């Protein structure tokens, strides 16, 4: 473990299979999923898109009703996961001017905006003034910094489905660079409307209607019958801080974020690049001072996209990571898009703490048998060094290397 690596001292998570780390861990290790035809208003239009939704989000008692009323679904999710992570890390005891927040995700509130447009029927005469705030993703920074008194810095970063990992990278850099002592990376809940669902289906990224009658079978990363991702609402927050800062409060960290990599393919389109993924993985391992043989677990991007899944496994082979344990968190919670990198980082940390790896649903016929897949049942395993991966439209690849608190 590198002594200068930032440590993780708190996490908060919201997903369709469980909200809060205890419920999420239990559901994850039990291999549960919650896919169905999505019901949230504004998400269907002559359609029956499959996905996993979190239902009503409960307002923590510490958050004022006035704040809650004004908050969008994405803002409520952000407040809830930050509340959980904040309390776990004991951040009330930290100088607020030394705390920062990075929100991963762009254009995350599309469903709510679509609902406003549709409710007003083409006339903006009686548009609510708060639209001027809520149409921007930075509104999430406003809600969170106001609620928790964050006085360091706060901003959003966008990198499509790699946004969550980008937030983690930015937050870690802010801590390593001593910009702040503590920085929270938040993977914002992507709130898709039927417009985005249609677009993602039309471009071939979102899974087809093939399993419309059996929604629990539709999300199948790395399985022979995969044909695209299945959306899942989720949101996560990770508290990253310097080791010295955590020691001042006597917090026992989950582990460390040892290294990270980010590369671009020079490609506007959705198709992946093995070369770009390999470079990101090698950057992360080099930065962590970690060899491929020291990595014993990979939490892959694994969306269920045919080209994406195949390319990712080829990249892992090329990096000498064939011997690792591998599962796919998206098979349980779906693809959270902007939130994915953070939620999968949290899944990795919670598996580290549990000493167990979660099953992968619907992995009936793995497209590559050479990996050590965790399939139908959880596996007892104490993760030492993990790699988590994200890729996004526009040719972005990110990789993070984590180590346990051992």
């Amino acid at each position, binding site marked *: 473990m590198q002594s200068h690596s930032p440590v993780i001292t708190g996490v908060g998570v919201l997903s369709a299979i469980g909200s809060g780390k205890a419920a999420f861990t239990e559901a994850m290790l039990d291999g549960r999923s919650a896919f169905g035809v999505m019901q949230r208003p504004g998400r269907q239009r002559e359609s029956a898109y499959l996905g996993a939704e979190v239902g009503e989000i409960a307002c923590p008692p510490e958050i*004022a*009703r*006035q704040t809650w*009323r004004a908050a969008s679904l994405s803002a409520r999710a952000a407040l809830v996961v930050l509340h959980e992570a904040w309390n776990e890390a004991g951040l009330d005891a930290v100088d607020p001017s030394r705390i920062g927040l990075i929100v991963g995700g762009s254009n995350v509130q599309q469903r709510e905006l679509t609902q406003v447009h549709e409710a007003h029927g083409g006339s903006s005469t*009686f*548009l*609510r*003034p*708060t639209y001027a705030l809520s149409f921007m993703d930075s509104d999430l920074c406003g809600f969170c910094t106001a609620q928790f008194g964050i006085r360091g810095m706060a901003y959003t970063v966008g990198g499509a489905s790699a946004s969550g990992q980008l937030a983690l990278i930015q937050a870690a850099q802010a801590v390593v660079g001593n910009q702040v002592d503590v920085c929270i990376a938040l993977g914002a809940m992507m709130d898709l409307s039927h417009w985005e669902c249609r677009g993602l289906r039309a471009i071939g990224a979102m899974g087809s209607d093939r399993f419309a009658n059996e929604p629990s079978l539709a999300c199948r990363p790395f399985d022979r019958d995969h044909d695209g991702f299945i959306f899942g609402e989720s949101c996560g927050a990770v508290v990253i801080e310097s080791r010295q800062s955590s020691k001042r409060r006597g917090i026992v960290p989950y582990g460390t974020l040892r290294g990270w990599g980010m590369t671009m393919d020079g490609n506007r389109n959705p198709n992946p690049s093995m070369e770009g993924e390999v470079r990101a993985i090698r950057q992360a391992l080099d930065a962590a001072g970690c060899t491929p043989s020291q990595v014993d677990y990979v939490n892959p991007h694994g969306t269920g996209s045919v080209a994406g899944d195949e390319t990712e496994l080829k990249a892992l082979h090329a990096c000498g990571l064939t011997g690792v344990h591998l599962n796919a968190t998206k098979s349980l919670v779906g693809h959270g898009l902007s939130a994915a990198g953070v939620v999968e980082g949290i899944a990795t940390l919670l598996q580290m703490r549990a000493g167990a790896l979660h099953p992968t649903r619907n992995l009936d016929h793995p497209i590559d048998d050479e990996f050590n897949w965790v399939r139908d049942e959880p596996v007892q395993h104490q993760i030492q060094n993990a790699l988590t991966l994200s890729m996004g439209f526009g040719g972005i690849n990110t990789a993070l290397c984590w180590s346990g608190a051992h």
Partner: protein
Amino acid sequence: MTRSDILELIARHTREILPGLDDHLFVDTNRLVELGANSVDRAEIAMLVQESLGLSVPRVELFGPKNIGELAELFLTKLHAVA
């Protein structure tokens, strides 16, 4: 639509924006800022009332009223002007 109806509309939409006022008894002299409404809340309340009345009032004219009684008067005057 009477002045009293408009006052009730203002009360209803104020409760909507400021959920802590469920049990508050609204009177003419209440000032929104003293009830806990910040500038954005006040703009929201004014817009909701206008939508309920089907009436669009230039924002600059909404700065005049000093309390909800005067605000109700303004809306009533505008309604009569339209009629």
